[in-house]
């Protein structure tokens, strides 16, 4: 696949896939094309050459949209009117049930399950804008979980998040992969929170520079978890 802005290539010869139950981490220095790749994956940009298939369909024409869960980078939700964790997570169920249809008991159970899986059940009735950054991020992850997706795409989900929330985040992804056999594509600079559960690491800088397991990356002298600064420093060197 290839994509560029004003003839300047941002992505060239990029080819990658995520299988069911696989946890793939996509890393790269600033300006490496990670965000562009995500936008192409979500259907808001079209590749100049090549194609993208999600469950066999073009992202724009994916009928079962609920199968693709998305957690945006630092979601900016409007907070003029208070909205509780329960209300935010419930909206995650709309794509599964149909945006015009009333929710049923199994939808409410899925919402409760998603909230429990990120450890936010004591805060269900709290307005989201009164929570810490880490708790808010967990609420947005639960919103993505609520549709019980087959592929979860996360954009820098643990940036600036406290250690407790990072641990909860890692546990909830393990739960999603183990219980629902979902694939996970995580875009991040910082992988120490998920170092133990990542199956594959893809390093992107316009092209795919590395595609392998964390132990293969270790042979390059880069660890994900032991020295948490290794990866960002190495990526910076690439930039």
């Amino acid at each position, binding site marked *: 696949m290839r994509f560029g802005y004003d003839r300047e290539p941002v992505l060239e010869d990029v080819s990658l896939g995520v299988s069911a139950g696989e946890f793939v981490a996509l890393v790269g220095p600033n300006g490496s094309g990670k965000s562009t790749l995500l936008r192409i994956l979500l259907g808001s940009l079209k590749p100049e050459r090549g194609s993208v298939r999600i469950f066999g369909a073009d992202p724009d024409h994916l009928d079962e949209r609920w199968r693709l869960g998305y957690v945006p980078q630092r979601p900016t939700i*409007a907070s003029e009117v*208070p909205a509780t964790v329960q209300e935010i997570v*419930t909206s995650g169920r709309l*794509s599964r049930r149909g945006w015009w249809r009333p929710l049923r008991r199994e939808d409410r159970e899925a919402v409760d399950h998603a909230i429990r899986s990120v450890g936010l059940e004591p805060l269900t009735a709290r307005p989201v804008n009164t929570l810490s950054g880490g708790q808010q991020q967990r609420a947005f992850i639960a919103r993505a979980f609520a549709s019980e997706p087959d592929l979860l795409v996360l954009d820098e989900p643990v940036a600036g998040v406290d250690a407790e929330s990072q641990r909860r985040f890692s546990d909830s992804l393990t739960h999603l992969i183990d219980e629902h056999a979902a694939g996970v594509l995580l875009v991040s600079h910082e992988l120490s929170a998920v170092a133990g559960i990542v199956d594959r690491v893809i390093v992107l800088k316009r092209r795919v520079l590395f595609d392998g397991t964390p132990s293969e990356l270790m042979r390059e002298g880069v660890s994900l978890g032991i020295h948490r600064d290794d990866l960002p420093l190495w990526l910076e060197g690439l930039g």
Partner: protein
Amino acid sequence: MTAATISFPFQADFMQRALVAGLAVGVFAPMIGIFLVQKRLSLIGDGIGHVAFAGVGAGLLLSVSPIWVALAFAVVGALGVDWLRARRRVAGDVALALFFYSGIALGVVFASLAGGLNANILTYLFGQPLTVTRSEIVVTLRLGAVIAITMWVLRRSLFAVVTDEEWSRAAGLPVNGLNSLLAVLTAVAVVAAMRIVGILLVAAMMVLPVASGQLLARSFRGTLIASVCVGVGSVVAGLTASWFWDLAPSGAIVLAAACVFAVVSLVKRTAPRSLRQEEHA
């Protein structure tokens, strides 16, 4: 008939008609308003009201029912504002101003061609619930029912779109369609309420009850219920005040809503610190 001879304000027929039409506005205006406030489009009702005024003028000029011509103008204007805002052809406030001033100017020109700015047109500008007819009440109730039922059925989808548009697009919700629907329903609400509170004050009934509701509640659903209660209470209080003190009823209704907001803000501000901390615990 004076306040001295009848102590209960809603015994007179015209007061009962005003109450029925006013209560409908008190329910459906905040139901729309909560989504406009969340989208930071609190003043869009005002802009659409000005476009509706052009429709009132055109209706009077053509000797056609002003309500239906106003509805057509308001719906087209609402979709135009939404189109400009969504495509960012011009800044949101400039888009509103464009429709705002063109609408009122067109309304003045049409009204002058129809015979001048008479008392009839002033009832649309400032509202006059005491002279509302049975057929106008039926129109208000029918339009209000369409708004209330649509908002209730689509409340979760509209909540998702106005709260996080980027995520809603990624989740496959029809964001453009729901935004357009909200704009059209806002236009319907403006027209349905214009005989009661007037084109110039209709936006106040969409926004002020929600401003109080968001201080009283801790959830979107709670804010919706509190806003409708404040809207209905403001109508009853405003009409009662207008009966006893001979005030303009539309102004009294909106002032009642503003007073509720002032009292709720004051109480929240002066509540003991321990109580406020408890709320956030």
